[in-house]
């Protein structure tokens, strides 16, 4: 009588069960980390739950078009970071990275002042997922997007 399952099938079943448990545990851990592992807060999160004054936090979002201004001292800049739902004014004095432009993503490290202004010590530019050659730069954003969409 040889009706028992083959050892290699038994091992396969055991490994599959172990893998399912492992992936489940990994997903649970990732789910538990979903807020802590985020690198920055977006403006709407920061307005809904403002961090205590003086606590170092990171604010990330898009630099609003037309909001970038240089102060009278020539080094301090002010701009507005938005995420489509909320807007937070940001002030920063220092050298900005190459990719820091209006309409692009930014991550600012600093503190939220009581008056609602975010004072940044460091600015990091965020690159989006689009890679477009310089020849297409003179097109408007919508044209460029259409040109990219055509080739997909």
């Amino acid at each position, binding site marked *: 009588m040889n009706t028992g399952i083959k050892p290699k099938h038994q091992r396969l079943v055991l*490994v599959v069960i172990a893998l399912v448990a492992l*992936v489940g545990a990994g997903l649970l851990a990732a789910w538990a980390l979903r807020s802590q592992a985020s690198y920055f807060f*977006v403006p709407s999160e920061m307005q809904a739950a403002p961090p205590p004054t003086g606590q170092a936090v990171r604010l990330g979002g898009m630099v609003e078009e037309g909001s970038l201004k240089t102060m009278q001292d020539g080094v301090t800049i002010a701009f507005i970071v938005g995420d489509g739902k909320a807007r937070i004014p940001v002030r920063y004095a220092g050298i900005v990275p*190459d*990719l820091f432009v209006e309409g692009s993503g930014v991550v600012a490290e600093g503190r939220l002042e009581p008056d609602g202004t975010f004072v940044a010590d460091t600015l990091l530019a*965020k690159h989006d997922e689009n*890679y477009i*050659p310089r020849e297409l730069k003179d097109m408007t954003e919508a044209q460029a997007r259409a040109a990219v969409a055509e080739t997909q």
Partner: protein
Amino acid sequence: MHGFANPTRFLKLARWLTPLLLGSGLVVAAIALAWGLFAVPPDRLMGDTVRILFIHVPAAWLGMGGWTAIAIASLVELVWRHPLATVAARAAAVPGAGFTAICLLTGSIWARPTWGTWWVWDGRLTSFLVLLFLYFAYIALAGAVERDGASSRIPAIFGLVGAVNVPIINRSVVWWNSLHQPPSITIGKSAIDPAFLWPLLAATIGFSLLFGGIVLARMRMLLADIQAEARLRRKAMEA
């Protein structure tokens, strides 16, 4: 499948496949890199720094692909007990670690002018650094098992457990806010202009061929080691 699990037949195949993969990989990678470094136009925002893309992305792909190969070989080792699977997993670990290190280095060099920092502890960068440490641990563990004659199932289990990190790396930019941008290439869609996409694809194919050649060469070396050891043991018995 079972036919290739026979080491003699595998060695016969690997003897001509190894130089073929290494040679074609070198040619394709050289053409792709020359294309990416000299012929491709600069990016609208990043300018010439975009050229790091053609090393960074294939290296990232092979860093993660290397661990996927270790995981598959570990599964075959645990379930079907193929002796070649053990050798394949060990052979993939070193080039996998190499490409992971290349990806981290080029990423850091790229981040300085574009983001304005060498390193940040965001989800993508941190999970990829964890991958490098997993490779180091795997290489050390497999080496210790080999030296001390412990069961090769120990590194195989570690190879499967470590595979949990691969989907985490892939999803890290989607699950969590990160400084690293979300994926540019998803199934059937690409946010990368064709001017960049084609040389990137060529570089990925070239690097992958090289990776395959290195794995085969290392498998032949590990098998030769095992054979030499067996022969020595037999001689010692006869004497």
